């Protein structure tokens, strides 16, 4: 299997889905001629022309709203928000419209729309090019939220998202774009939305994570293995719908849980995961449920020492796992 980068997996999925289905089109700021500011849509305009690879005006609410109209009509738009931070002007369209179209029309209309957005920090992006924004949407029924960590999952899940009958928010960690590489089949395949995956088997402590921190957790696990601590790592991959079964199974494996995400702690999705565990796997637990997350500050600062302080890393995670293991 060829080894490709996380961002190439995005491009390949788009390319293949646009070939497969003429209803698929992409739209966003600079996605056409420029191929996206991260180059995720590179090569598409040459292949499919400017109508299907649409450089929109600088208006996120319009990107979402126009895509919603087109999706309700029967197309399969894939909208790009240039940075997840800039999804905010589109919140009304996403929350009030996309998420509610099926429900409010008693199932007679639908909104098969994908919104892709690069999120996350560690790239000197400062406050407004580093945020994790999933918490804004995880409480909004009607949306699906996908946050893959590997090229394989990116490609398979993006394809599933495009083929899904409902609106999917597809968040790509921008630090992973060129950092993370992995094997990806040449043949068409999909990864189902709503299924977590065990990325490492272990017996002492369970780490539940997604995105960049998932890789940090794997690195921490590798390190801790040498110290004799066996870490079980679950990659949520999809936040909504949450794969509760996989979560509960992973908890049962070790009885000790550390939930890790880059998004800030309070009000982050880790709270939901912890709550599910505290309700449904209470008797499996041998220790308090721990969360290790971004700090509760408005966003990640620019200055290197502050950015470093904000970001998680394998060492911070290893430390938290050790504490749990010793519990």
């Amino acid at each position: 299997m060829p080894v490709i980068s996380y961002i190439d997996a995005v491009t390949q999925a788009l390319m293949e889905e646009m070939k497969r289905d003429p209803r698929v089109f992409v739209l966003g700021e600079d996605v056409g001629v420029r191929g996206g500011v991260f180059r995720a849509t590179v090569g598409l305009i040459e292949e499919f022309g400017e109508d299907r690879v649409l450089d929109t005006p600088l208006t996120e609410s319009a990107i979402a709203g126009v895509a919603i109209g087109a999706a309700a009509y029967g197309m399969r738009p894939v909208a790009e928000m240039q940075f997840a931070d800039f999804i905010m002007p589109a919140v009304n369209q996403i929350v009030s419209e996309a998420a509610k179209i099926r429900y409010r029309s008693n199932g007679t209309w639908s909104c098969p729309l994908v919104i892709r957005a690069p999120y996350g920090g560690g790239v000197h992006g400062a406050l407004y090019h580093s945020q994790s924004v999933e918490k804004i949407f995880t409480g909004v029924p009607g949306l699906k939220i996908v946050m893959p960590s590997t090229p394989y999952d990116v490609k398979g899940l993006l394809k599933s998202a495009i083929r899904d009958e409902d609106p999917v928010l597809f968040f790509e960690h921008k630090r992973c774009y060129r950092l993370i590489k992995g094997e990806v089949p040449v043949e068409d395949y999909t990864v189902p939305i709503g299924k977590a995956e065990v990325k490492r088997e272990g017996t002492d402590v369970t780490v539940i994570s997604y995105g960049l921190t998932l890789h940090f957790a794997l690195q921490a696990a590798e390190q801790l293995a040498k110290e004799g601590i066996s870490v079980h790592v679950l990659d949520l991959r999809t936040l909504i719908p949450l794969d509760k079964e996989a979560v509960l199974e992973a908890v049962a494996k070790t009885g000790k849980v550390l939930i890790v995400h880059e998004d800030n702690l309070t009000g982050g999705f880790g709270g939901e995961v912890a709550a599910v565990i505290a309700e449904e796997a209470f008797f499996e637990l041998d220790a308090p449920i721990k969360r290790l997350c971004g700090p509760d500050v408005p966003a990640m600062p620019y200055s290197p020492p502050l950015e470093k302080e904000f970001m998680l890393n394998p060492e911070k995670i290893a430390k938290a796992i050790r504490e749990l293991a010793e519990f």
Partner: protein
Amino acid sequence: MSELKHTALGLSDEQVLDMYRYMLLARKIDERMWLLNRAGKIPFVISCQGQEGIQVGAAFALDREKDWLCPYYRDLGMVLVFGQSAKDQMLSAFAKKEDPNSGGRQMPGHYGDRRFRILTGSSPVTTQVLHAVGIAYAGKLEKKDHVVLTSCGEGSSNQGDWHEACNFAGVHNLPVIFMVENNKYAISVPLNKQVAGGDVSKRAQGYGFPGVKVDGNNPLEVYKAVKEAVERARRGEGPTLIEAVSYRLVPHSSDDDDRSYRAREEVEEAKKNDSLVIFRNYLMEAGILTEEKEQELNKQIAREVDEATDYAEKAPYPDPEETYKHVYA
């Protein structure tokens, strides 16, 4: 009713009579809903009264077989012309299972009907204006020649989404008609506190497409403006903005009391220009409507509304378990 004659617009006597019938039907359904509300039978009404001329005039200028509507909550006249019935309205007002818009999930006035290419709408104003642009863009991708008409109130046209929609449609020269139904109030806030400059239609110049202001109390004038806009759109010449001026004859909704913010005299004055009065007079003068025909029409409509009310009142509610359905496919 000025000089404008329906024949000059290519409308037959039958067609204008039909227009009047729709206007009257909309009015009578609406009036009935207020009665039902005041009798405690339905929790909420939001009214088309005063705007029937705009809605019916506009809808008649569209192709009811292929064009699309992204309407707003007052557009009862429009959705009737496009195919919805009095029964559909009453099922919605009573929040019954059979309501074609939402199975009783949404308030009345939240139209949405696949049968007639009326996109499902919501309460936050102006979101539909962007959806209209999306449907127009989809038509472009699929090489269809449908036109999309979307409407909102003059207050709602100040929302950011409206600007973004006009700009997007302008850049891509899309077949969208932006209709703004200026009824002079946004709940209690009058035009001068709402729309800077006072002229919504002038805003089109900033997007490089035509903007026109028409007398919304004259359905023929609205028809003419929309017809021209449809033709431009169909020829690939892009969007048109139409500001149709009328007046909201009743309170904002059944929850509102408009006496606190506008004088009764103002309302009474506006009633003289009610599109129903004006169009009726026109048809009478033209000999198309007679006292006799009118009686017949009134009777027919009263029956239609009665039957619809009866049917809807007796129709079953959705089951509680329906609450959990249609979250995802």
